[in-house]
């Protein structure tokens, strides 16, 4: 049995939904952030699979850019979380419900 494009897309869709489940369910800001990374990785997998099966290298270039931007995003996001933690002494979303610092 050969593995086709739809197999990879299934894995990618399931991985995306697992990440979404984490974002909806968990209350810890850091774990929510990790779930976001899972969702980005699911998109990467779909792009690489499309790129291989459609004989087009553009998908891989796009994944390269996504990885770079995700690294920058993680750095800024974690700095924000640390700054927020200094103000509120908590990384729990229910403690961070008001907009006023």
């Amino acid at each position, binding site marked *: 049995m050969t593995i086709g494009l*739809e197999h990879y897309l299934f894995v990618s869709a399931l991985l995306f939904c697992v990440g979404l489940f984490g974002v909806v369910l968990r209350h810890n800001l850091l774990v929510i952030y990790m779930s976001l990374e*899972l969702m980005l990785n699911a998109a990467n997998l779909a792009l690489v699979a499309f790129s291989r099966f459609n004989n087009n290298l553009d998908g891989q*270039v796009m994944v390269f850019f996504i990885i770079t931007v995700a690294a*920058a995003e993680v750095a800024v996001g974690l700095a924000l979380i640390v700054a927020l933690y200094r103000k509120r002494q908590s990384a729990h979303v229910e403690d961070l419900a008001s907009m006023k610092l």
Partner: protein
Amino acid sequence: MEAYLFYIFAALTLVCALLVVANPFSRSPVTSAMFLVLTIGSLAGLFVLLHAFFLAAVQILVYAGAVMVLFLFVIMLLNLKEEERRKLRTAAVALALVAVGAIAAMILKTVEKSGVGFGLKPKLEGGTADLGKLLFTQYLLPFEVVSVLLLVAMVGVVLLSKKDLK
């Protein structure tokens, strides 16, 4: 052989991803981070199966190396011990399951019905040389813009982590 490897890596990815978001034994963020490293490693395996060797290496180096070390630093920096004990409400879990399950069913059904991969054969042999050539010719401007973005992110992080945020 390749099919077996695909199923092994796919199962490993999904199980480890589930253990990142909902681990029945531990709610500690450190455990989640460790399982995220495993997820990323098995995703790199899937990339190798798709003949994207350069991206598999970058995935390991950047994600499992740099990003996860950053995550672990922040987890160690913030003292999150007491927050592990808070309970998740059963209703919240059930609602999240229903919502995410509906979205999953929708996406999977769409992929199945659209017949998107029908009759397509894997053919791209994206070597690193080809990727580099594309990156420095057709995608030169986005490449430079990304370098500026990294600089901006660095300056932003330095500014954000100052003691008195003005």
